[in-house]
């Protein structure tokens, strides 16, 4: 019976939720034009339109423009049916054709990419398969392959997003998981008390977050995403905040004020042994690891205003990293370890997301929205998502690290905040 109940909980957490509706508000100046021919399918109605998902994915990157099906002059099913002049006439630089077949309960999607300008096939027919429930996964897989082939950058269309939805009257917080395009939202947790700071473990199997559910005080939890099973990692007096996984997934950096003041600590996830990293009467908060795990970046107001500092975990040597602006907080390190992304404010301006080149110290403002917070970087380092406000609601937004592409979620019921971009899944 107990086992039955646990399975029920997993099911209940899978009920349908309103999905995010992320929209590209600004793409690159000259997007690559690609025609994704509707995938052929001999059966009845398919629950998903794979060609359309691939087109939407590529447009979501801000680097592509997908040519609408109703403008297409032909619908080739194989290389012999491809007439390059048809696609040149539409200005298309690439052409993707595909077909779906079914054997028992499995679907097989085969696809081929053509370079219209050079009039040649880019890659021979590839096939991806899955069940009906995995049709979207199959489409995202194709998007990744096409994106990487054309841009040379690994695609993020198969990655996931965790975010927090907050409602008032009655107060309610939900930890949500969805595809990176916002589709297939699934609830991981619901509580009446504040919920914040979700972060993915490096292997993509667990999420750490802060929940106020016990005595309306913050504690750090680690939850297994597939099973919903979770552990309360901390329950110290005062602040228990901002968990951050080490790159090897064995440690959690965090901020605790159990000794009277917010300080940075590192916890061994297995043994729960704590190591104190900072010791200063100012606020030391929001730790995040360098790409190699040798140091921790964190926010501190020890200089009078919040700024980012770096501490070497072995030598405990500390130095200030940000100097541009009177407010720099909530740092995140790009996957290549070269850039620091954070919340930045200059005197007289609003809060924006900025990127700083760690070596040179040069800082660039990336976002044009106001009251921005909580940046999270895509595992390919090309884009970052963050939370902002629009129409009086908390919404998610995204911007490419070169600031050329911008994405904004239209406001929906409740506030959406605290995005966490997953790592690549193996």
């Amino acid at each position, binding site marked *: 019976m107990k086992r039955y109940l646990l399975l029920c909980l997993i099911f209940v957490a899978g009920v349908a939720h309103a999905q995010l509706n992320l929209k590209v508000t600004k793409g690159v100046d000259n997007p690559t034009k690609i025609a994704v021919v509707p995938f052929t399918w001999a059966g009845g109605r398919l629950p998903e339109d794979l060609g359309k998902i691939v087109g939407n994915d590529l447009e979501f990157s801000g680097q592509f423009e997908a040519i609408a099906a109703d403008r297409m002059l032909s619908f080739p099913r194989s290389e012999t049916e491809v007439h390059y002049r048809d696609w040149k006439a539409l200005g298309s630089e690439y052409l993707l054709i595909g077909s779906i077949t079914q054997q028992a309960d499995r679907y097989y999607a085969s696809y081929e990419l053509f370079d219209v300008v050079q009039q040649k096939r880019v890659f021979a027919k590839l096939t991806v398969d899955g069940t009906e429930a995995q049709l979207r996964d199959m489409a995202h897989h194709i998007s990744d392959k096409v994106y990487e082939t054309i841009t040379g950058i690994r695609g993020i269309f198969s990655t996931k997003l965790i975010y927090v939805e907050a409602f008032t009257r009655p107060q309610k917080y939900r930890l949500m998981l969805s595809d990176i395009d916002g589709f297939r939202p699934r609830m991981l947790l619901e509580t009446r008390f*504040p919920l914040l700071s979700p972060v993915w473990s490096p292997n993509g199997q667990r999420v750490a977050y802060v929940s106020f559910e016990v005595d309306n005080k913050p504690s750090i939890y680690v939850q297994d995403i597939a099973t919903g099973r979770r552990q309360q990692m901390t329950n110290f007096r005062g602040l228990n905040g901002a968990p951050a996984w080490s790159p090897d997934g064995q440690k959690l950096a965090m901020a605790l004020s159990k000794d009277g003041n917010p300080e940075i600590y590192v916890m061994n996830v297995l043994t729960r042994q704590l190591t104190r990293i900072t010791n200063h009467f100012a606020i030391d908060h*929001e730790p995040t690891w360098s790409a190699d795990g040798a140091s921790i970046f964190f926010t501190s107001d020890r200089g009078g205003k919040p700024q980012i500092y770096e501490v070497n975990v072995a030598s405990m040597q500390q130095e200030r990293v940000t100097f541009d602006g009177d407010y720099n907080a909530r740092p995140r390190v790009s996957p290549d370890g070269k850039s620091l992304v954070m919340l930045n404010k200059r005197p007289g301006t609003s809060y924006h997301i900025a990127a700083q080149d760690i070596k040179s110290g040069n800082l660039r403002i990336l976002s044009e929205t106001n009251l921005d917070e909580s940046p999270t970087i895509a595992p390919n380092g090309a884009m970052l998502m963050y939370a902002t406000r629009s129409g009086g609601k908390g919404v998610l937004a995204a911007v490419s690290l070169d600031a050329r592409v911008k994405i904004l979620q239209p406001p929906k019921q409740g506030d959406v905040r605290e995005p966490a971009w997953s790592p690549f899944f193996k």
Partner: protein
Amino acid sequence: MITKALKQGLTLAVVMSFLVGCSNSDTKPVEPTTTGTATTAAPTETAAPLSSVVYFDFDQYSLTAESRAVLLAHADKLKGASVAVRLEGHADERGSREYNLALGEKRANAVRDFLVTQGVNGSSLEVVSFGEEQPAATGSDEASWAQNRRVEVKY
């Protein structure tokens, strides 16, 4: 070709479809509770008769003269009394969410330290911060922000 992640997703999907019938009796989503950390009742929202809120300047956690006057009245009431008081620190919505939790705690600590210097027993004072999570005013303007940068003294 199929990735391992797809296969895992399939397993979960099969489990879910198998369980279609099992949630009919309870449509309200429930938290997984496997560690015994049961959710407790909401904190009481009753306001104290004496002015129970002190306010702070932006990104500051030092007490204003006005706040000190209010807190002196509380100190007189609390001195020698064995009543438990909860000091709830808050911040406005601007800036980083986690950092604002620290700011709220620093504000509540400043109130606690002041009360202790006035002779109040520190062990009767409990500090908790909600950062920007529980605003008193929901607008995104200076008037709302000023109301939200506060410590609530709750008896």
